[in-house]
């Protein structure tokens, strides 16, 4: 089962965990991204995420395909939030279940690393005195 969504409402860790439960699962690894209060020692006030949604879902599904092929995972849940997020809120959750735990760690880490490289979602950091689209400039 795969549960891949882009949502404009708060994400829920328990929900993503439950989505990948299975009697054959020995391990579940959940990665939760959190909005930090600072970046490069500059205080962040809020983050704004926007996405090219249909393509983002397509790319997230490509990641899921690869997790099944390469790690033989049982289930994957990827939820990404868009809109305005405050410090401590959750932009992304990835949950993976596998028969043995090592594969769950590897697959989950691969998923978040790849998501950050390929999925068309953009983050703008809002500071007290300005705003920056993350990663845009060299």
């Amino acid at each position: 089962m795969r549960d891949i969504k882009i949502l404009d409402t708060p994400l829920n860790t328990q929900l993503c965990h439950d989505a990948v439960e299975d009697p054959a699962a020995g391990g579940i690894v959940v990665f939760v991204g959190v909005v930090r209060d600072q970046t490069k020692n500059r205080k962040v006030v809020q983050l704004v995420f926007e996405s090219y949604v249909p393509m983002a879902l397509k790319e997230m599904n490509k990641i899921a395909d690869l997790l099944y092929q390469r790690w033989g995972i049982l289930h994957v849940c990827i939820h990404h939030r868009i809109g305005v997020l405050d410090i401590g809120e959750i932009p992304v959750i990835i949950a993976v279940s596998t028969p043995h735990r090592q594969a769950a760690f590897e697959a989950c880490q691969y998923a978040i690393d790849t998501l950050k490289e390929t999925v068309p979602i953009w983050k703008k950091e809002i500071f007290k005195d300005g705003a920056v689209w993350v990663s845009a400039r060299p």
Partner: protein
Amino acid sequence: MKINIVAFGIAKEIINSPECSLEVKTPCSVGSLKETLMAKYEEFQKLKSIKFAINEDYQEDRFLLNEGDEVVIIPPVSGG
């Protein structure tokens, strides 16, 4: 032909609109569309990278555009 282009993130700010259209020669590759765009909006040259999605998939410079393609500028992504 006329190519309609959708922009997100910093690309939207650079063209100062969520979309624009460019008149290009036929055939037009992704690569030459990129050049045309960078000439018109010089700010794009300052980005770390710029990619294009055609009908919801990344495409290389040598990919040829058809009229009616959904063309989206993909500046460096930063999800997660």
